[in-house]
């Protein structure tokens, strides 16, 4: 017990003295779900950080733990889920150790979140204006009409036409793209320093997706907030993010600057993922495929979770979980053999 406490206090010191530009530092995050079928090891030993003002992407296939990671960062995992271990430092404080009362001050104010399906995250019986104003009056001591005025301003900010009139409309009167704008304006209502966007455009058409991403990019520049963007689309990562983490089966297998990872993906999974997507700008005869399917996280493969599908796997891969190791200054890889695999490239 004492050793644990000691290591935390060391971390605390480290974060406040050395890395002033780091906003969120996730270390060894582990979240399990206790279901009737067994323990789902959804997220295990995940570590990454997001700098101030940075656009960070988290990419992976469905069920790889992206959303659970994001929810864990806000301590929002609910029964049967449990955060088993790890720390999430936000501005130097461990979010997971905060009291309910204190974390509520952070949620929605300093860290806010938008979700994939805007219809199910808006309350159908309140007007959108009331729902935006609710967040404002919850975190700040303002009068009702002031909060409503601010709600209108926010709706204008995200490009909702006729905001003055539409503020009294209900969610069902908006289109999908407009609802997502309402969600964004609600998320922005207290000037967050971190915006978590969980697949914000997956339910939308491409032309609307382009609109929404432009709004998020614009607001990020304007207010200097950090963004954690969760998506399965490598194109969205390439066009929006500065750094990216690739997740597979509850582990982060590679993190790097976006420019680096697309030029030099080092983990076999990242490589396979990139070779499997059809490209608009290139004509590809045959797409590369991966054998097998995504691992069952109730009984995940031992060692490297990717080893049963990896053509380079050795006996070591089945035994030892490869740690996320620094390769170059902005590139970390969790693979025992990435140096040999990429030897011909280097």
């Amino acid at each position: 017990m004492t050793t644990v406490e000691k290591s935390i206090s060391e971390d605390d010191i480290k974060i406040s003295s050395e890395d002033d530009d780091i906003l969120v530092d996730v270390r060894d995050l582990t979240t399990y779900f206790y279901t009737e079928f067994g323990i789902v090891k959804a997220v295990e030993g995940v570590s990454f950080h997001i700098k101030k003002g940075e656009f960070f992407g988290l990419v992976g296939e469905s069920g790889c733990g992206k959303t659970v990671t994001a929810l864990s960062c806000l301590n929002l995992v609910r029964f049967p889920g449990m955060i088993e271990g790890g720390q999430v430092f936000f501005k130097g404080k461990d979010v997971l150790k905060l009291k309910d009362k204190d974390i509520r001050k952070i949620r929605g104010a300093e860290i806010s979140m938008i979700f994939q399906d805007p219809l199910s995250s808006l309350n159908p019986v309140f007007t959108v204006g009331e729902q935006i104003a609710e967040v404002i009056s919850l975190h700040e001591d303002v009068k009702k009409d002031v909060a409503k005025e601010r709600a209108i301003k926010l709706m204008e900010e995200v490009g909702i036409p006729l905001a003055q009139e539409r503020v009294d409309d209900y969610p069902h009167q908006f289109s999908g793209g407009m609802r997502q704008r309402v969600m964004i304006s609600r998320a922005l209502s207290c000037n967050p320093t971190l915006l978590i966007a969980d697949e914000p455009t997956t339910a939308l058409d491409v032309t609307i997706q382009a609109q929404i991403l432009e709004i998020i990019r614009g607001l990020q520049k304007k207010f200097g907030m950090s963004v954690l963007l969760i998506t399965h689309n490598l194109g969205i990562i390439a066009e929006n993010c500065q750094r990216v983490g690739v997740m597979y089966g509850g582990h982060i297998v590679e993190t790097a600057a976006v420019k680096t990872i697309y030029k030099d993906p080092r983990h076999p999974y990242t490589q396979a993922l990139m070779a499997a997507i059809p490209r608009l700008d290139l004509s590809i005869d045959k797409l590369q495929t991966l054998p097998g399917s995504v691992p069952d996280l109730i009984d995940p493969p031992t060692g490297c979770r990717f080893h049963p599908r990896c053509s380079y796997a050795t006996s070591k891969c089945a035994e030892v979980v490869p740690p996320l190791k620094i390769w170059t200054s902005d590139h970390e890889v969790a693979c025992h053999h990435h140096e040999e695999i990429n030897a011909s490239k280097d």
Partner: protein
Amino acid sequence: MTISNQTSSDIILETKNLKKSFPVYVKGVVRKTLVGYIRAVDDITIKIRKGEVFGLVGESGCGKTTFGRVVLNLLPPTSGDAIFDGQRIFDMKDRKEALWFRKQAQLIFQDPYLSLNPRLSVSEIIGEVFIIHSRGMSKQERRERVVKLLNLCGLEDYHALRYPHEFSGGQRQRIGIARALAVEPQLIVADEPVSALDVAVQAQILNLLKDIRKRFNLTYIFIAHDLSVVRHISDRIAVMYLGKIVELAPGEDFVRNPRHPYTEALISAIPIPDPTLERKQIILPGDVASPLNIPSGCRFRTRCIYAKQKCSEVEPPFEEISPDHFVACHYPVESKLF
């Protein structure tokens, strides 16, 4: 295949002024009143060539699925005609003709979870096809054919006895493909066959679809909203907007040199996984207009950044403006996006 000298035998399916509208009612206390029609497919005239992959893209609600259903005679058209291999398909009334057409043209569905009967085993799901289309086939032969089809689609012999819930999404889509292939069709309409799948599985299914097309010399109408996927598999691509095809061109030409402002914006809106690529991005204003209330003249003009007076008055005809490149626009753009 030369473009200008097409003989009718090169064409597998032709639609002439095909229209499909759905009435929309508002339910009142006493009666329901008709408030209008959704023109889901609005006057489409195209020719689909034998052996090609005809990609059809568009945003949700543009009518691409309705088009696929109407040309398979699964939905009756409001007006217009469709000719398959010289036969007018909407005239087929008796069972024999209908069965013949079903044998020629099949459908692969989007959702592999909903398109397979959960109470039948895979051998029953596929074997059912032979009971209907090849009467008198022995049980033994039927079993052999099922296994052969499964192997063809990358599944194992023992999978025949399992039930749909025992399979992953990708495997279920393989079963759906095997079922479509069972009648040895000439034409397959694939309606969003990979949009429910993750990228790695999507790649497997796309490769499978490509392989079997080559092997059996099939024609596909490949419907999807993901232009990257459509471009990967298609020979020609058509883009739909509010019930109409606004541009049709060979794949490479379509992506490199779009002429309709909507296509241009659509292509520029698709994120490309290459952070070093510098390109122009056009962000369309507003939402798609309601299909209940289609704008006058050019239906795209309400979102078009180049719209002029004429666009609101005259509906642009769908014309061939360069060899094999059809566009419905008064002022086609010259665009180089890559």
